[in-house]
């Protein structure tokens, strides 16, 4: 790697991540430690870990890039990413924790007592996880190329390598610690340079904002391709409802000691996310002032990284760039390892362990299965990096939110609150949601820019798919009362009763 400060920052973040995992390895001894951190994580640290895991490439680079590019309408992305946790809090946080489920498939099986629903959910978790991993790897590629001229594949290779090492070696305990640290690395790496850049801009009477009306005023952007109101509302719905269906989010709730702690954790998460997203706007606005235009083919996602050199040429700019690059890599690594861990958990329980049990009769190491699954979990999206077109990062992760909102949101919401949900109803809804959402996403990605209602409905499909899936689940459940799990009432009691009564 080129001997630049930014390159050194990348190496440092990677080394610290691996070192923290190795430290965690000495602490995690039993298999249960690998999964759940022994359940001894305080709300404060758990919230930092959730924030650390959740703030991905899309948040660190993508949000500022999208606001830079589209203006005020893109402010809905960070708002939506945050509102998702409020919806999660009021609908599922405590019940999900009380269900004792570690992954979404666990919840589905515990609630519906059905192996087939479980397998369906497993497939969806792996799919959503892989889709969410792709933009992280893309981001690592173009970031490393920008700061050190490295080839585009080197960034993803680095991320995949570190993630496999830390996930396979440390398990959840170390990951929780690593993620909590990552949040503070990311916030400092974004906020401190933002303060410096703002001060320089202020002190040197830097360039003023020269922006179009459509950038400043809401709902008038040409980029929306028409039907802006529908697109905005549907996007907001996808982000708000999809968060609870993201595989790496749910796993975190198991590390809370009880339902009350799960709620306390979520409130703190909202604080941490708000702090972070307020800062991203600084980059978008300063970017408009210093970089009125980007060259052809330059990703708006790189605005955060290009700004220091424009504002503060020389050593100062290089130091800031190093901080930002380190923070960006912290974002790629933390989200990727969170996703990899979630996908690994599912692959291990539903694929690798059964296969291993068949191949090696009798005694086999459970930890070995976990490690094999970890490698598979990251290699598949790695192989897919080159295939996908370069979509803005914040828009790319939205695809995963859409699929999560169309499948897991109805399952969780009805599963937690409605005793009459039947196995057939859940299955029909999940299949409907998955087919429609994946279909819409595929058409949007493959067909590119078009206009009119058809495009608006396909590009932002959550507003019609989510209600439709809800109706399918309810109607089919009402038609198949024999498919209501026998223990449904008892499960619901457990989900909603405080632990001091049932435990």
């Amino acid at each position: 790697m080129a001997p630049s400060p930014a390159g050194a920052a990348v190496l440092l973040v990677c080394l610290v991540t691996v070192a923290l995992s190795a430290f965690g390895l000495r602490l995690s001894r039993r298999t249960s430690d690998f999964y759940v951190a022994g359940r001894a994580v305080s709300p404060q640290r758990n919230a930092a870990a959730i924030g650390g895991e959740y703030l991905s490439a899309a948040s660190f680079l993508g949000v500022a890039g999208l606001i830079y590019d589209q203006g005020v309408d893109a402010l809905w992305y960070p708002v939506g990413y945050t509102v998702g946790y409020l919806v999660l809090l009021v609908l599922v946080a405590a019940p999900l924790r009380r269900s004792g489920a570690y992954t979404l498939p666990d919840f589905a099986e515990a609630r519906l007592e059905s192996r087939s629903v479980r397998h369906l959910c497993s497939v969806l978790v792996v799919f959503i996880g892989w889709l969410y991993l792709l933009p992280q790897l893309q981001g690592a590629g173009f970031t490393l190329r920008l700061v050190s001229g490295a080839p585009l594949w080197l960034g993803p290779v680095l991320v995949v390598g570190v993630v496999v090492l830390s996930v396979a070696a440390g398990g959840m305990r170390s990951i929780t610690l690593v993620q909590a640290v990552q949040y503070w690395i990311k916030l400092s790496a974004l906020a401190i340079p933002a303060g410096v850049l703002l001060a320089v801009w202020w002190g040197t009477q830097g360039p003023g904002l020269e922006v179009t009306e459509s950038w400043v005023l809401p709902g008038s952007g040409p980029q929306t391709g028409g039907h802006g109101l529908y697109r905005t509302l549907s996007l907001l719905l996808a982000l708000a409802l999809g968060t609870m269906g993201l595989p790496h989010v749910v796993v975190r709730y198991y590390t809370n000691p009880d339902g009350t702690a799960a709620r306390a954790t979520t409130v703190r998460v909202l604080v941490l996310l708000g702090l972070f997203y307020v800062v991203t706007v600084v980059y978008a606005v300063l970017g408009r002032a210093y970089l009125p235009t980007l060259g052809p083919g330059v990703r708006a996602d790189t605005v955060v990284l290009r700004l220091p050199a424009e504002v503060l040429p020389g050593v100062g700019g290089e130091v800031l760039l190093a901080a930002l690059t380190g923070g960006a890599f912290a974002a790629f690594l933390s989200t990727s390892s969170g996703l990899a861990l979630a996908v690994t958990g599912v692959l291990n329980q539903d694929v690798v362990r059964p296969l291993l049990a068949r191949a090696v009769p009798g005694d086999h190491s459970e930890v070995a299965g976990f490690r094999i699954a970890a490698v598979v979990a990251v290699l598949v999206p790695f192989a897919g990096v080159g295939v996908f077109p370069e979509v803005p990062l914040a828009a790319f992760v939205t695809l995963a939110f859409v699929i999560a909102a169309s499948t897991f949101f109805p399952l969780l919401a009805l599963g937690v609150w409605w005793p009459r949900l039947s196995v057939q109803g859940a299955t029909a809804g999940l299949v409907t949601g998955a087919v429609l959402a994946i279909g819409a996403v595929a058409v949007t990605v493959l067909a590119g820019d078009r206009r009119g209602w058809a495009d608006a409905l396909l590009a932002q499909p959550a507003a019609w798919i989510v209600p439709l899936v809800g109706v399918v689940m309810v109607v089919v459940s009402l038609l198949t009362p024999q498919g209501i799990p026998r223990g449904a009432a008892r499960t619901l009691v457990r989900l909603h009763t405080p632990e001091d009564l049932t435990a």
Partner: protein
Amino acid sequence: MSEGTPPHLEARVRVTSSRREAATARRRPMAAALVEQTGAGELYLRGLLRAQLRLALGVLAGLAVVLGGIPVLYAVLPAARSVQVAGVPVVWPVLAVLVYPVLVAVAAWYTRAATRIERRLSAVARER
């Protein structure tokens, strides 16, 4: 454990339980009625579920009206888009900054309300 196993080997047990069953609740007799859904227990649960659901839906409805109302307002009343405060269109400080403390406040309020409902249930169950 088979008989005749030396004690030092007996101590080594491979724990292979799946996490699925990890948190099955162990019940205290106290809350048996509640968990078994017999008689009064069923009534408590129905009340609890209804109270919690009403609270949750109330928060979500408020959220939908306030947040969803912003783009709807701008679409219905285009003049509102360019309302300015100190030279800045008001939508910027609202969506970029103010929305976050509001979300945190709502979350904190909800958490207190939900916990209060649960405490009330616990108190009733204990009295029995």
